[in-house]
């Protein structure tokens, strides 16, 4: 800061368009999809066990490998949701 405290907005070059129009419902759905992997993997006691095994892999290991794919799918869905929630967000 410095001497220019006062009315700074008058010096703003272009007018602020604010946030783009957003479909809140879709954004909430995307947020939920992003939160699920975090909660699932932070809840370690739910998967810190050996059985059931799969191809010789204890549950603990194959379950986490599985989450790589689940999380990837959820993130992709969240991406599509955010795109359609905001028309301004293209590509």
């Amino acid at each position: 800061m410095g001497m220019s405290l006062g009315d700074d907005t008058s010096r703003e070059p272009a007018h602020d368009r604010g946030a783009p129009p957003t479909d809140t419902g879709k954004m909430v759905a995307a947020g939920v999809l992003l939160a699920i992997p975090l909660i699932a993997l932070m809840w370690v006691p739910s998967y810190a066990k050996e059985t059931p095994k799969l191809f010789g892999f204890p549950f603990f290991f194959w379950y986490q490998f599985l989450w790589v794919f689940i999380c990837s799918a959820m993130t992709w869905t969240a991406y599509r949701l955010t795109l359609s929630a905001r028309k301004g967000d293209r590509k």
Partner: protein
Amino acid sequence: MTPLAAGGGVNGVALTVLIVLFLIVTVAGFMATRFQRGDSLDTLDEWGLGGRKFGTWVTWFLLGGDLYTAYTFIAVPAAMFATGAVAGFFAVPYTIILYPIIFIFMARLWSVSHRHGYVTTADFVRGRYDDRGLSLAVAVTGFVATMPYIALQLVGIEAVLEVAGLGGGDNVLAQDLPLFVAFAVLAAFTYSSGLRAPAVIAFVKDTLIYLVIIVAIVYLPSQVGGWEGIFGAAKEKMATVNEATGKPTGAFIPGVGQGWAYATLALGSAMALFMYPHSVTASLSSGSRNTIRKNASILPAYSFVLGLLALLGWVAIAAKTNPIGLDGQPNPQLVVPQLFEDFFPDWFTGVAFAAIAIGALVPAAIMSIAAANTFTRNIYKEWLHKDATPAQEARVSKITSLVVKAFALGFVLTLDNQNAINFQLLGGIWILQTFPAVVFSLYTRWFHRYALLAGWAVGIVYGTVKAYQVINPATGKHFGGSLAEIPGLGDMGYIALTAFALNLLVAVVVSAVLNATKVSNGRDATRTSDYYADKDDPTVAHDLQRTNDLEAPPAR
């Protein structure tokens, strides 16, 4: 399969393959100046961010090459081999939850940086609060945390060379010569090509890594008794009582009371990773707001490979791999290179070693560029030379990238590698303390700049003291690990995350007080719409030009 100790001489075939592949990427690194060429390399946007126009696939290779470092490939299986799943396999949930986290905030950081020409997170903090102190704190933390990380990449190269039989002997010069050569190559192509060099080399690195790991994970288990046998051997080793500590060697799967350690290591590491300058540099070099979001759903491919790689540490247990260094001492860090040398034909061992050595070049290049950008923008330009031109900025950054790497080399050659590991452990704790100032500020200015600075300071001091107090039960030395008791909970947890919680508490309380007493929170140079800008939106420089045009309407 001829189990051969590392000291058993030079592996000529493997070494030749390694050298040939290394030469190929050297040429690629120098030719990278032409890759998606811009007008000139004389600005930070071009040299340090590759022109800010990398698309989805270049970004995928670049970020993959950047985040999954050679040191990771050495250290994660080493941790699995030595102490088991809590210290090693947390890398998997860490690199899964990483992506939902960056999905949320990285698009905003990209947009505001695109609009204002920010190159570093400290640039953004400077713009958000007009506060040099807070910006300096973020910049210095990033710079200091990156240094040991670069050193560890050289440690990764060293591990490969050591198993290949190089670097031995009594001649000090001959011993370190290969590392010098690798370093000189890295320094030269980074200097001349900037971020385009690692972007091009990352294609080679990632292809080799995928090839080697997939071959290893398909071929090796059948050689050592299948997955049942591997997990059995690992379980047995982890349950064996360690003579030095009187406790089990490690964890097969996290037991009762180890859940917090596992979860906090994963969460703390995931939150910290994109505070590092090299991650931000790679993200900001992408060409649009959504490139990074798209990448959040395809980057986990690397996490899957990292999980397989972690399990190679246990394959080595079943294979009875004996990682002995050239000094005759056991060294878990050599376990994966040694496993490859024991089981692969020599030529493929060479490919595997090249994958790791080249894997070190990509992150080391990006890290040194990112550290140099941080120094140039937030220390040189901010404090030493206010009127620096873009060309001067680019020149200072190029030179700094050399100095940073020379420092890392000196670090590795003169000090015990344990120092680099200790500092990297501390770096992870420190860098996480910049999270509130960077990420929360992307959403709100409720947090007060002085409160963020106070929280940062408290987090750094607490984390450093706690890490110092961790004693390695076997060696009796400080900085023995990254876990300490979580106050009020009793279980062990990642120190960085406990320090972060304390940081946050201080930031909230002090912000509430300062906001209530109406202490100025600085001037915000950003506007709401900046956080949604995409590649077609005009930059601030463009806006200023327009305003000037309006003030002086053209004569008709």
